[in-house]
């Protein structure tokens, strides 16, 4: 064998070292994205309307009942929702992961369905079902019992109603954490207890429950966090009932006359609590390591439920009726019936709502256009930033990679509405006047999308062994060529998946958009909120069903990619 080996040239420094400028460039971009809005937030919260330094905003926050009432309400809603979520999700997670429950795959799929349903859409669906007068369930109740027209069984416009609806779309967070933890906990750990003489309940009490407790606790914190920072559901259900939560209160401070200083002050407790709760979650889950100690494990031994199998299955289905079947049916009903809250029959079925949304609702085409532009731009820019940062951190390509990784994950601790307030304060003033343009929404969406995009892509990079790139280089390919020929093809599915996820996330985002939109920059989610105000529930249902279909398609496709199973949407 003889081949001409290209003559090797004398050594020299090859090209310019791009790593430093790249690092500083991205760090600067991330700093602007995160630090700028937060700085203005802090500054505003400490000044009065004339710009003088003061603590009066915080004083009002904790003394005026119009401020601390929402604080207390939010606390009650968040705590109760977290408890309800755990009470529902923990047993269900155990049934699915550790017993011979029939069709456990179907149960998991239904939980995923409620996971990806935008909470504001769920809240509107439950308006259709359980509004005191027009709600479908109340109509059925009156039809059966012959009660008077002003009698009702359910009233969704109450604090209980809000807690119920929030729990419907928050319990999946707890479920996923508990079920995953049980999936990962090897069955041998329980077998070891049995062989030493531990009965089934003793084993459950001493081994299984302590092993999943950290996941459950973390789930409770996440549920609390979700319930606390949600804007859509409380805005749809609490405002008609005549009370505020923190998020709706912050939003109301931007209605005329705007009081940005107070909004900033009211945002800070949310921010501080979020940071604190995420730290706590991290600490709890960080210690989970002890449950997966070395060795090779088989699949867990499923606990036979015997005659309770089908009972348990039916109970699970009944529970899942609440977040999935009933609301979806209500949306379907509203989409095709002439009036949103009359029952659909073959006779009265109509395509009027679809026609209205597609052709008559001028706001819809603008919102759709804005959403597509923002979705595409956010997904493209967000994926690009995330790819570079994930590469740098996964390969530790430059010193200081830790800082980049930290900055890319930091926005996770900023609730959407708080970010909205911060960006409003940052970009309504020179030199950056972006309020009223799509740019400010783009910045908001990129910031919101960045943490999960970064985490997904980092996971994707971790599945690509660095030696795959090394092998290409030692055979004569440059770093760029190796990236292009080896890394890029292997990363392609991950990148596409991330892009789609960001796009879907933009479509669902409401709490930052509600602060930042103007009449020319409305997006779909804001449009749905507006239509709810004006009572166009049929149109909402049509748009909502479309949104759900797109979301399901993306989630189903992406779940087939290994390693992408656990995706959290932010609400």
């Amino acid at each position: 064998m003889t081949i001409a080996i290209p003559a090797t040239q004398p050594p020299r420094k090859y090209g310019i070292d791009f790593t430093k400028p790249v690092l500083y460039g991205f760090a600067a971009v991330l700093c602007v994205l995160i630090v700028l809005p937060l700085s203005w937030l802090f500054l505003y919260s400490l000044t009065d309307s004339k710009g003088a330094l003061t603590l009066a905003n915080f004083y009002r926050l904790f003394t005026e009942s119009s401020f601390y009432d929402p604080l207390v309400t939010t606390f009650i809603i968040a705590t109760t929702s977290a408890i309800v979520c755990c009470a529902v999700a923990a047993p269900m997670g155990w049934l699915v992961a550790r017993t011979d429950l029939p069709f456990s795959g179907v149960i998991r799929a239904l939980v995923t369905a409620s996971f990806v349903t935008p909470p504001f859409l769920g809240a509107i669906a439950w308006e259709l079902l359980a509004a005191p007068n027009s709600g479908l369930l109340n109509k059925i109740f009156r039809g059966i019992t012959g009660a008077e027209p002003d009698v009702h069984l359910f009233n969704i416009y109450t604090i209980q109603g809000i807690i119920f609806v929030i729990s419907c779309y928050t319990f999946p967070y707890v479920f996923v954490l508990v079920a995953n933890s049980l999936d990962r906990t090897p069955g041998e750990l329980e077998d070891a207890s049995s062989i030493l003489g531990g009965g089934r309940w003793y084993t459950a009490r001493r081994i299984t429950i302590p092993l999943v407790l950290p996941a459950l606790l973390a789930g409770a914190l996440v549920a609390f966090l979700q319930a606390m920072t949600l804007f859509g559901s409380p805005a749809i259900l609490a405002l008609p009932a005549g009370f505020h939560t923190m998020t709706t209160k912050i939003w109301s401070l931007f209605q005329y006359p705007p009081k940005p200083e107070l909004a900033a002050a009211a945002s800070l407790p949310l921010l501080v609590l979020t940071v604190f709760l995420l730290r706590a979650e991290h600490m709890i889950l960080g210690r989970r390591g002890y449950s997966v100690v070395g060795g090779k494990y088989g699949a867990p031994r499923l606990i036979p439920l015997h005659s309770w199998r089908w009972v348990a299955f039916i109970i699970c289905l009944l529970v899942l009726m609440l977040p999935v079947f009933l609301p979806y049916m209500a949306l379907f009903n509203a989409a095709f019936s002439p009036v949103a809250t009359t029952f659909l029959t073959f006779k009265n079925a109509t395509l009027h709502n679809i026609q209205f949304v597609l052709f008559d609702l001028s706001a819809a085409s603008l919102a759709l256009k804005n959403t597509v532009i923002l979705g595409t731009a956010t997904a493209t820019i967000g994926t690009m930033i995330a790819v570079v940062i994930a590469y740098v951190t996964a390969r530790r390509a430059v010193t200081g990679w830790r800082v980049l990784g930290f900055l890319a994950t930091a926005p996770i601790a900023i609730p959407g509405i708080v970010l909205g307030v911060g960006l409003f304060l940052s970009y309504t003033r020179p030199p950056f006047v972006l309020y009223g343009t799509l740019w400010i929404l783009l910045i908001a969406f990129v910031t919101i999308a960045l943490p999960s995009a970064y985490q997904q892509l980092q996971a994707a990079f971790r599945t690509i062994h660095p030696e795959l790139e090394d092998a290409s280089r030692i055979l004569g390919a440059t770093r760029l060529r190796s990236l292009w020929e080896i890394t890029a093809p292997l990363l392609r599915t991950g990148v596409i998946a991330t892009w789609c996820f960001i796009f879907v996330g933009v479509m669902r985002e409401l709490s930052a958009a509600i602060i930042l939109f103007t009449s020319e920059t409305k997006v779909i989610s804001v449009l749905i909120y507006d239509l709810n105000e004006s009572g166009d529930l049929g149109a909402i249902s049509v748009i909502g069903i479309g949104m759900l279909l797109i979301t399901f398609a993306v989630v189903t496709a992406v779940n087939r990619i290994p390693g992408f199973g656990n995706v959290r949407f932010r609400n």
Partner: protein
Amino acid sequence: MASVELKGLTKRYGSAAVVDRISLHIEHGDLVCLLGPSGCGKTTTLRLIAGFVEPSEGEIYVGDRLISSPALTVPPERRNMSMIFQSYALWPHMTVAENIVYGLKLRKLARDVIAKKLDAILTTTQLAPLAQRYPGELSGGQQQRVALARALIVEPETLLLDEPLSNLDANLREEMRFEVRRLHDAYRYTTVYVTHDQSEAMTTADLICVMNGGKIEQAGSPEEIYNRPRSEFVARFIGSSNVLKGKGLDGGRVDFAGVALRCTGEAVVSGATTAVSVRPHDIALSAKPPQQTENVVPAIVVRQVFLGDSRDYMVEAKDGTQLRTLTAAEENIPQGSNVWLHLPPERCRALLG
């Protein structure tokens, strides 16, 4: 022409030196093994040679060409080397054939030349029927051969192997050791081979460098390393050794348990504590006091095990040192008996302090 020379090579991460002032000359066509426990710096040394890591100090030359120094590092793709990785690093999105010809395509060879070379290497490595498969569809041994073919087809000046056999099962590993040596003899590339397995090193290497704590403890031929270890680490790491400690006496003797042992090996400093290694099968054990008296140590049997073709004794000398020794299977001396050990002077190796 393609000798490799490391001069005072050092790699520090923070203040810890992972590779510590290594100097080594590898003749063209030699197969050198870097042997040592995990964390001894052998893989970092290999990655320094490959150019994936930049040295903190020192230089690497190929022939008279400087390829690595703190000031400049020729990138891996300009070094005309090839490497086989521990994970094999086969690209999962390319077929076996695509994996193998990757390096040739980079060298912009004519299509028919590439095809001819591919055919030749597929035959040599017995991969021809698998050419259109993807790496995920191959067994471990087949993947290993693809990695080998991919590295060899570009005819590198230098071939680097990073624990290439550690992912194979025991039988295949033994077979592949000889395969690596056979291919090396056929092509005679300058080869650097990293392993933690001493029998792998023994079978394949011309020169073994035993590494410990970022330094080369001893470099030499397999016989030299085994028969004439210079440090306690090498004595213990290569094969099993008894290491005795005693005070140095004049005339190359060491005072061990009241016996003045005559030793070979490193110079014995009078008065200094000196370690002496002696291999279990070199010790002659007898139940009666032997006639000769030089290098005879009395001891007591602590335990003994019948191993079929031999018997494994653990005995204890007066000063409490325990020694392992092997005897013929018939030599059955009960536990607690007095025995006499003859340690042949030419097998007692005084070690560096």
